[in-house]
């Protein structure tokens, strides 16, 4: 069962486990380019967020995996093929959120015929979690 972490209002400076390993990860080995530990998390984000002129509704909690690869944390969602790195878990999750929202907006607005098979699959997955509810461009 994935652990639920509420990163919705956290900041890198204020979050208590900055640069720390969360409970449940008991053994860490550092080997270049080997995934040494995987932790499943669900990130709960504010139900609505704004990016530029876009208001995005977060439809459900977003499941991510945290991995430690060569002394860097990588947060990602395999199904959407979105991954981001960070020096701490919080940085990796924050970067993942940015990447997830930015790429969702890009893919959602792109003409469908301009997307290859990978991005189409990513967008289909992202649509389960996000929806544009207001766009000042229109």
């Amino acid at each position, binding site marked *: 069962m994935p652990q639920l972490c509420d990163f919705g209002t956290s900041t890198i400076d204020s979050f208590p486990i900055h640069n720390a390993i969360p409970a449940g990860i008991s053994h860490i080995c550092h080997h270049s380019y080997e995934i040494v530990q995987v932790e499943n998390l669900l990130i709960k984000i504010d139900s609505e967020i704004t990016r530029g002129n876009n208001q995005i509704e977060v439809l459900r909690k977003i499941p991510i995996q945290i991995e430690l690869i060569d002394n860097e944390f990588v947060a990602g969602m395999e199904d959407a093929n979105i991954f981001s790195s960070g020096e701490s878990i919080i940085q990796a999750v924050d970067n993942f959120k940015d990447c997830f929202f930015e790429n969702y907006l890009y893919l959602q607005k792109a003409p469908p015929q301009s997307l290859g098979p*990978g991005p189409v699959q990513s967008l289909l997955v992202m649509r389960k979690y996000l929806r544009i509810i207001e766009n000042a461009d229109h």
Partner: protein
Amino acid sequence: MLTTEHAEKIAKKLKAKIEKSQKGHDYARIFFGGKLIAYFGIRRSSKDTGHDHIPRMIFLPPHKTKQLAICTMSYEEWIERMKELEKI
């Protein structure tokens, strides 16, 4: 570890279009035949930050990704792999 420098070299090798973001990232978007086939974020930081998220976003194992950056793997080889994976 894949660094910012590696990330930038990979983006250049794969002929990516770089989109600047207001956040701490740029986005490298790779097109082939007029279609977007892959993309990844490049972290902007004062120090050399890690980019170990890139291999899976471009459908390569880590050592092959590094080969892209250091020129022992070509753009054509990567395109061939993308075709094999039916990502093109």
